[in-house]
């Protein structure tokens, strides 16, 4: 007994254990740090913007007088952009994923495309803005319209969707497609009737995440020259538009001139965050509802 106690003292076990628990608290507080900032950010935005949100603000048109300003134009612009981004990313993204997972031979070409996709995912969004400016706005001569903005953002989030669609397809167990082939189904029939339906919940989850990334993006839009001034509501793919992030951007930088603009920016942020929150809730709902059972 005495010996053990001596050992105890020698190793300073008490001190070491105490040190361990002190650091455990530090690690825990570090984890909380990010969350505290998140809480401060949200509370701050709510305080600044909540009282500015009413029906007039949501359905109203843009105005330079803070009291009359509304963001319907920006909401419509964001929705129109979604109209472009959703089909374009889904078709290209799922098509690419099917090609990579189910058609291409595992070889050189496939690894080139996959490396390329992972590198594209790391390209700063503003560079996509320059691509869009050069190719869609100028070369294709679309101008800074919904279609140009939507295509630019679609290319930007495409890698996210491809990677998640690939994972979704890979997760469909082989015995399902075997059963289908065994019935004399062709490859495409098997993909369309068995593999895709089984993968679609995960693909949609990935698509929604990609979409929420797209509608929060600002930098590429600034490069495309998307305005945030009084412009008519967009009514089609070839109309000029503004989007919620652009609105936030201009109101934020001009808040040093007109103080109320900061509140408008905050109110618009609330709307944007609500849209993102709803989108993500849908994603979580889909994920939970269609959890794989095979």
């Amino acid at each position, binding site marked *: 007994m005495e010996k053990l106690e001596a050992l105890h003292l020698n*190793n300073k076990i008490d001190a*070491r254990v105490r*040190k*361990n628990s002190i650091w*455990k608290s530090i*690690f*825990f507080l*570090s*984890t909380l*740090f*990010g*969350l505290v*900032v*998140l809480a401060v*950010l949200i509370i701050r935005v709510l305080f*600044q913007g909540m009282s500015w949100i009413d029906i007039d603000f949501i359905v109203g048109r843009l105005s330079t007088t803070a009291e009359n300003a509304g963001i319907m134009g920006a909401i419509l612009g964001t929705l129109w952009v979604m109209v472009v981004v959703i089909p374009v990313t889904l078709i*290209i993204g799922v*098509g*690419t994923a*099917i*090609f990579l997972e189910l*058609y291409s031979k595992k070889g050189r070409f496939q690894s080139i*495309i996959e490396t*390329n*996709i*992972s*590198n*594209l995912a*790391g*390209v*700063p*969004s*503003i*560079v*996509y803005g*320059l*691509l869009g*400016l050069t*190719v869609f706005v100028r070369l294709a001569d679309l101008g800074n319209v919904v279609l140009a903005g939507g295509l630019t953002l679609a290319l930007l989030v495409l890698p996210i969707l*491809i990677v998640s669609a690939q994972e979704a397809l890979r997760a469909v167990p082989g015995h399902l497609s075997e059963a289908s082939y065994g019935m004399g189904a*062709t490859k*495409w029939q098997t993909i369309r009737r068995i593999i895709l339906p089984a993968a679609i919940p995960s693909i949609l989850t990935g698509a929604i995440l990609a979409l*929420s990334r797209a509608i*929060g993006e*600002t*930098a590429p839009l*600034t*490069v495309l*020259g998307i305005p945030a001034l009084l412009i008519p509501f967009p009514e089609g793919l070839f109309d000029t538009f503004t989007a919620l*992030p652009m609105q*936030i*951007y201009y109101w*934020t*930088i001009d*808040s*040093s001139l007109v103080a109320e603009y*900061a509140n408008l*920016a*905050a109110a618009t*942020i609330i709307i944007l965050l609500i849209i993102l929150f709803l989108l993500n809730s849908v994603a979580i709902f889909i994920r939970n509802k269609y959890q794989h059972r095979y």
Partner: protein
Amino acid sequence: MATNSNLNSGTNVSELIAKNKEKKSLNNYFEKSIPGILFLLASITVLTTIGILYTLVSQAVQFFMEVPILDFFTGTELNPLSQNPEFGILPLLNGTIISSLIAILVAGPIGLMSAIYLSEYATDKVRKVLKPLLEILAGIPTIVYGFFAFTFVTPLIRYLWPGVEATNILSPGIVMGVMIIPMIASLSEDAMNSVPNGMREGSLAMGTTKLETTIKVVIPAAFSGIMASFVLGISRAIGETMIVTIASGSSKNFTFDIRESMQTMTAFIVEVSGGEAPAGSTLHYSLYAVALTLFVFTLIMNLLAKYVSRKFREEY
């Protein structure tokens, strides 16, 4: 065939199927064209890369015909709008590097410590609550962070440290750090999670505390994964645009004073493309030279991260 004889029904399925097969020739053409269609869709990503490279390089070349490449990379003066415009990228590089360093100084330690907590200390229950919350942080649009930096963090810093200017590099640097915490935390946590449990147990069995095991066993084993997460974090910060554009202003100072306004490469691109740089002007082309530099920077960082983490995977 004997197949149908015993089934008490009028429909002969195999005959129906055989008949349908004859009709299916149109479908056959469709089926045959599918791999081709999918191949075309898959090559769009390659076209994107080619498009980016072509856009940047072709116009940057135009720029370097007017401004010598050496002047560009060694110039400390950036006055694109003056009578005698000067195009030195160093002020922008300086702004980019300083803001990214501030960001990683914030996100590195906090992200790593979060990862340690989540991977080594947290119970499953706690982890299941904390991780999705951290993911929210990663899902906030950067424009919101920009707003936060400009209207909240900067005033706060100026209150605590009166010498700080209204637009400065410190505030966006810190906020970018917060933004990349989740990324570093989750990548480092992945790296630490893939350290085999046997290594931990071997150490714990010798009577070491969790802290000692973490520092002496887990972190060294996960080191390259952690490094990769840092490098990716820096890469994100280098490419981040809105936070610095909003909160750090547009003065092209070549300074190391973090209380002052500086411009990053990304913010410069926003400023110049948003203003009316006439197409064909040197100013316009400078946009692409800067963007190319930015692109190469982030590409190198991303490849470095991949290289480092691949080395790490080979260890087990």
